[in-house]
């Protein structure tokens, strides 16, 4: 590749990524040269500004035609744009949480890393959602994973934090290996790592003798990626890691990392397995349709395991880990149904989940705060201590439970639409989803019981840092507004991205 060709690429489409990369680099250098005892919070604010700048520049790119550079390895189609918007909003809110995060011990010396590692993780997630090639995909995945490993264990002198990092690395390593193993079959069968080329090979003259190998690769890739989604069978890490990791990191894992996982999962499923035949005759269904049952099975298992085990949790972050597993299950239902509403449903649900879950984590961070008390009883009497916090938490919990009037309800409604719209309708899967939703009332309302019915242990007023206030205002407003007027979001999605029709171009 010569210089001329390098320059001929439309590098502009990577502006958001460049901003994040550039600021992350600058921050790491600044951190080196700043005096030891100087407050590092300023770095956090710079990082926040960078994310906002990236967001704005991405908005500027929304109307752009689908473009790909670097031999099709990096592509900016509407699918990537829509989901990157979510990633950036999520990361910006997480960054605000991180700025307001002040644990008891073990963080002072690593404050700088704390901020720019979020940026590199975000960069990984963005590259993942824009990748048109298995190699970029993997690079993004690893960048996200490695940054997250360090972030989970960043409280060096805090034992649970160390434990969580350890478990995360080991589980992550295994899942990466499984994913790669699955992808290697794809490469072996098609001779390419480029998604578009793979699609071409698979849909044109694919040797049907090798279908079972491809089916095996499907299961391996799906199972491997379920690590990022925190869905069955790779969900076991979530409770321990969520509990031990610093709260902003937990929030990041449950929202940004999960979103990135879904983005890449869906892209691989649709491009590779949506093109592959499932039988020897030419008129057979794509393999993805055949595999629906397996996805549905895993979705059902995820919802049941997540919601049922959450019933027994006393630790709030552990409880939210299982809740996050359950929500991954709901999202998998949308994929399993493969209906016309799938993109809408996933995008909206991930967005709604982003707001309600980050809002809840903001409050968890505030309540567990300096005392490191993460028991559910820390919420006791919150209504007396701070009515505003209690009511905001109430909004998030109602939304997570899918009560009408909140964004979470519309999200669930949309997923339901999909399951009943297709023929044959997925009655069983939908019933499992709704039954487990009712089960989830138990634990979400358990927090309500603490906040509103139990007396407070202390009358100490809770001080609200500026960052948390901003997060709460945005998340509460978004949860309610998108719950009452969801078409604000749907219309934006439809007018700007036109149903992701350019995904396969």
């Amino acid at each position: 590749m010569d210089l001329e060709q390098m320059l001929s690429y439309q590098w502009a489409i990577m502006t958001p990524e460049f901003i994040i990369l550039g600021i992350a680099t600058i921050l790491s250098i600044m951190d080196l040269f700043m005096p030891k005892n100087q407050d590092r919070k300023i770095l956090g604010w710079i990082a926040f500004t960078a994310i906002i700048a990236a967001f704005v520049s991405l908005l500027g790119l929304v109307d752009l035609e689908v473009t790909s550079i670097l031999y099709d390895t990096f592509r900016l189609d509407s699918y990537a744009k829509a989901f990157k918007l979510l990633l950036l909003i999520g990361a910006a809110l997480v960054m605000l949480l991180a700025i307001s995060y002040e644990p008891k011990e073990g963080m002072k010396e690593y404050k700088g890393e704390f901020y720019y590692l979020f940026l590199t993780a975000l960069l990984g997630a963005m590259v993942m959602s824009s990748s048109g090639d298995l190699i970029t995909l993997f690079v993004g995945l690893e960048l996200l994973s490695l940054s997250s490993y360090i972030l989970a264990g960043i409280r060096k002198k805090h034992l649970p934090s160390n434990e969580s990092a350890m478990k995360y690395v080991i589980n992550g390593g295994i899942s990466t290996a499984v994913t790669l193993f699955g992808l290697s079959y794809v490469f072996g069968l098609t001779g390419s790592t480029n998604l578009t080329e793979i699609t071409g090979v698979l849909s044109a003259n694919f040797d049907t003798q090798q279908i079972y190998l491809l089916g095996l690769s499907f299961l391996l890739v799906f199972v491997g990626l379920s690590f990022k989604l925190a869905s069955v069978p790779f969900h076991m890490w979530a409770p321990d890691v969520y509990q031990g990791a610093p709260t902003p990191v937990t929030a990041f894992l449950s929202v940004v990392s999960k979103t990135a996982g879904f983005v890449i999962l869906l892209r691989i499923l649709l491009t590779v397995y949506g093109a592959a035949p499932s039988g020897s005759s030419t008129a057979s269904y794509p393999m993805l349709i055949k595999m629906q049952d397996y996805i549905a099975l895993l979705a059902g298992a995820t919802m049941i395991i997540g919601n049922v085990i959450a019933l027994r949790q006393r630790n709030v972050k552990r409880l939210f880990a299982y809740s996050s597993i359950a929500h991954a299950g709901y999202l998998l239902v949308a994929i399993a149904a493969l209906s016309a509403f799938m993109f809408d449903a996933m995008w909206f649900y991930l967005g709604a989940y982003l707001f309600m879950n980050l809002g809840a984590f903001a409050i968890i961070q505030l309540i567990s705060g300096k005392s490191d008390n993460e028991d559910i009883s820390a919420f006791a009497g919150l209504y007396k201590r701070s009515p505003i916090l209690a009511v905001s938490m109430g909004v998030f919990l109602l939304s997570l439970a899918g009560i009408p009037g909140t964004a979470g309800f519309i999200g669930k409604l949309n997923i339901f639409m999909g399951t009943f719209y297709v023929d044959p309708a997925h009655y069983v899967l939908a019933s499992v989803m709704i039954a487990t939703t009712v089960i989830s009332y138990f634990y979400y309302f358990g927090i309500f019981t603490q906040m509103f019915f139990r007396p407070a242990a202390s009358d100490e007023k809770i001080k609200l840092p500026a960052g948390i206030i901003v997060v709460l205002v945005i998340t509460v407003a978004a949860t309610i507004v998108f719950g009452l007027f969801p078409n604000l979001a749907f219309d934006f999605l439809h007018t700007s991205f036109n149903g992701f029709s350019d995904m396969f171009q």
Partner: protein
Amino acid sequence: MNLMLALIVFSPLLGILVLSLMPKMQESSIKLVGILATLPALVLSLAVFSQYKNGTELFAYNLKWDWIHFGMSEGVFEIPFELGVDGFSLIMVVLTSILSVLAAIASLHIKKEWKGYFMLFLLLEVGMLGVFVAENLILFFLFFEITLIPMFFLIGKWGFHEKEKAAYSFLIYNGLGSAVLLIVIMVLFARTGTSNIDVLQQLLTADAGHARITDNVKMGLLLALLVAFGVKLPIFPLHTWMLRVHVQAPPSIVMLHSGILLKIGAYGLIRFGMGIFPEQFTSIAWLLATLGVVNLLYGAFLALIQKDFKMVLAYSSISHMGIVLIGVGALNEAGIQGAIFQVVSHGLISALLFFLVGIFYERFHTSEITKLGGMAKGMPITAGFLLAGAMASLGLPGMSGFVSEFMAFLGLFDAMPVLAAVGCLGIILTAVYLLRAVLGMTFGKAQREFTGVSDISSFEWAPVLVLVALIVLIGVYPSVLSEPLQATLETIMLGLGG
């Protein structure tokens, strides 16, 4: 565009707004605002009612705004924000707004955290009113769920000693009920592209039916509806949660719960079950009538042996809801009219009885029958009203209970005489258990001194008088209900092919 219905439904929100700005400790002004905030809905709904009586067509009040649409193109999968009433739902709206005012007055007995209480109370009222004016199923579901959350808190925070258990039991049973309801709604919506009740009615009952909803699916949906509303009504054996709520929730809330919320089940069965799936409904009518008789007898027998007056009333509610099922199951005009009458009549009677429970609970901190014995000596007026309420409940001619039971059984005797004969036993049992309980309280052996206990006083007069007056009015002049219902009944009968 007529904003009337929207104003009725959302007027309590104004009260919530005012309350949220008030300081926590101003007890009397909070209570005042709470009561005042329920008045606009009453005034407006009475205005609509009287205009309707004077000949205004009800569709003049219909309201429709664009709200949500799913999918890429407009026109399909729309959920507009549409409100409207017919005779039946208008009566329910009026009943709701009357009982809300009275329950707000009964809430003067509430002892703590009035601000939170009244805000939730008003939210509950929004939900209840909304349920009856919603013109599409998704909006119905939305309001239906809105009632769930305030009820959970009102029971769990202001109830008696086992309040939290009762609140959870309420939440989970009703949560499951509404989950099943949501499945029905979403299947209909996803397969037909509309959730408007009238449109669905036309689509599904047209000769060819709807291609994407087969008869088997319809049957499944109807049975699911039966379960969903059966939890709410409640139909035996889905009733246990309701006993807990009746006993543990504060009496002012039980007035609404037993007066309105249970009736949503009956409303849903008649409006959706009968309206959308008439053919299938006809084929399971025997099941409904049987369930009705079972409810009637089961409730009556168990009411016979209860020690706590609140439990007597709880089982009596189950028993009386059996009459609704009997009327609906009869599938003829008399039966359905009887069912609707019973819905209204029981709403008024149970509100009266629970208001009286609130009165003596306030004074004696108990509702056990033996401990209240001899009450007539100390509180003659309260005891008198209690007797009046019991008479209405057991169906004394001249009071509303008689009209509804008479018509429901008239319908059933016409359709299924044997079952009706068995059911008649229930009427006798009703008289027995009510008289046993009420006489035990008023004239039984006195367990305590009643001197120094004030009889019914000041604000407590208003609800009692209003309720008794309405009960007698319906009893002696049933046309006050049957006239507005006429059009609705005709539509239903037409749908049933009769």
